[in-house]
């Protein structure tokens, strides 16, 4: 059985402007020791879906299930959830500059985490553990820096501290919500390297959220592509990059400058993502889809296996064949030109 099994997770928010349906029926599994990459544009529901697992989306309406280690995180009582959080699930967030409490020393923050779950450990031991952890994540002179305040660290180092904290109790799952987006490439490489190292060492499963396909290509085992609150495609990394099925995945890959030759224009996905309050009918991607046909705005495609592989799921009515797709695209372009 998978370490984490999420089934049909829905999350919505009541706002003044209407109900924001941030996550709409997503399902995925995370295997022990593996990395699931979730990729998608801003606002596609990546953070909401993972934070819901940790009970961090307050005021949201949630349904579905998320079985972690035999506990359904969605229906768990706060104390049940707390026993898991931090202890078995570690989390790191996007902005290392604001994710640590500015008024407490980093050591204190790590020790709090340790002692919060391990009541037997002495203060001294916890402190030693914090120093060890800081050393492990590559903070130089950890025994001195353990008493520094977060603002005395650089962004990359703070993210390392966050990782150290998340890993403090050797969790089975690490949820990393865009851990490197705020960092420079060289530092990003450092952090990704560190996560890889940690995973190798502890066999931790990782959910890595990012909107950078490059990062995904680097570290993920399996990839889920999110669009407007749903997972539109799920596949093993190589499969996804080599043979994307969903037009959105395809568009994302094509948008990347590295995918085209210099001098040639890029092939962007046209248009912008829909509002989560007023979703288009049928397939949510249909208004932007170059292949859209009649069925697309009438029926909602479900995530299902693509014929080529059982492990490759996609929510699209299209057949996988490229010729057919191209024909559809031309037809649609012709129709638009005629209009």
């Amino acid at each position, binding site marked *: 059985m998978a370490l984490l099994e999420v089934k049909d997770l829905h999350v919505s928010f009541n706002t003044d*402007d209407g109900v924001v349906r941030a996550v709409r029926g997503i399902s995925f599994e995370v295997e022990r020791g593996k990395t699931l990459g979730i990729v998608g544009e801003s606002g596609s529901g990546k953070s909401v879906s993972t934070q819901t697992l940790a009970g961090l989306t*307050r*005021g949201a309406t949630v349904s579905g299930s998320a079985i972690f280690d035999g506990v359904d995180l969605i229906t768990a009582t706060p104390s049940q959830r707390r026993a898991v959080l931090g202890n078995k699930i570690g989390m790191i967030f996007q902005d290392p500059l604001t994710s640590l409490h500015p008024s407490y020393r980093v050591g204190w923050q790590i020790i709090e985490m340790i002692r919060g779950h391990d009541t037997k450990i002495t203060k001294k031991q916890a402190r030693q553990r914090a120093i060890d952890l800081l050393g492990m994540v590559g903070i130089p002179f950890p025994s001195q820096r353990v008493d520094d305040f977060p603002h005395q660290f650089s962004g990359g180092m703070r993210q390392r501290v966050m990782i150290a904290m998340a890993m403090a109790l050797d969790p089975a799952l690490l949820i990393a919500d865009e851990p490197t987006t705020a960092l420079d490439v060289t530092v990003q490489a450092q952090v990704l390297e560190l996560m890889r190292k940690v995973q190798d060492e502890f066999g931790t499963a990782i959910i890595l959220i990012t909107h950078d396909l490059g990062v995904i290509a680097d570290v993920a085992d399996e990839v889920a592509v999110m669009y407007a609150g749903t997972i539109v495609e799920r596949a093993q990394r190589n499969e996804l990059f080599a043979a994307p099925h969903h037009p959105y995945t395809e568009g994302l890959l094509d948008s990347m400058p590295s995918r085209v030759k210099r001098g040639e224009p890029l092939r962007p996905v*046209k*248009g912008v993502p829909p*509002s989560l309050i007023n979703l*288009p009918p049928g397939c949510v991607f249909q*208004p932007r889809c170059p292949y859209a046909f009649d069925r697309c705005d009438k029926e909602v495609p479900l995530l299902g296996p693509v014929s080529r592989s059982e492990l490759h799921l996609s929510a699209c009515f299209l057949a996988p064949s490229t010729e057919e797709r191209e024909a559809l695209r031309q037809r649609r372009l012709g129709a638009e030109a005629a209009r």
Partner: protein
Amino acid sequence: MSASTAPPEEAVQLKASTGVVARGPWQLAWRRLRKDKVALISGAILLLIILVAIFAPLLNDMIGQSPNFQDPNGTDANGLPIGPSGAHWFGTDALGRDVLGRMISGSQVSLGIGLLSTALAVVIGVVLGLLAGYLGGIVDTVIARILDVVLAMPFVLTAVALVAIFGQSLTIIVLVLAFFSWATMARIIRGQVLSLREREFVEAARSLGASTYRIMFVELLPNLVMPILIYFSLLVPVNIVSEATLAYLGLGLPVPAADWGGMISDASDQGLFYQAWWTAFFPGAILVLTTLVFNLLGDGIRDALDPRIERLLQK
């Protein structure tokens, strides 16, 4: 000129497809405000009070009560005021004058001074705050020190002293109230400008060659409307109360001008209100009501213009 690969309709699609109508920041705010029942009711009451103030003489004629007329039958044999009755709905004061009539006429003083002094304070505060925040350097330092001085002077004490020395006239009271309230405005504006001037649109304007004054008044000022409006709505009641406080301490407008604070002050003399509660109750109530609706409306405006707290609540 038409060599774009991005056809216009693609852009149009955005809002049309999401069904969100285009609307400016003000329309947005107004829309939110309209949903806020408390703010709307407060606004209506405030409007009523303002109308009363504007048409005070007319209203007094209508109810047949002059604010200054000392009714010989308005006091009993011992010279004590008469309670609420058909002749005097809210009773009379120590001189036999109609409390309601004086309250109506007092609304002119209270609102007038409150609004006038606040407007003056806001103008001074905005201009100096803009100058200090945008120009920085020595201008900023000088203005900052003036601010420090003003803020270091205890308000009530100094205000009382100033009015006592320079005389109890409308001008002096308005000036004194404005003198003590511009500083906070300037501070807020300065802070806002400090962060605004780092925003890229200011840089953009500069890169277009816009002059300093254009940047201050065309680029920055519209962005300050929100804090100005919020602060204005919060400051008016403060100044109304300050004026009432001055009047309570015997430094309001000269007699026989009616003035809410002054009415309460009169009622407190020799513990009159123990014997005649209405002399203090009604002016006190209208004072509280006015500040309350101002504050409620101010809260509403703030939530409408800057729904941050509301958004925070949703997290």
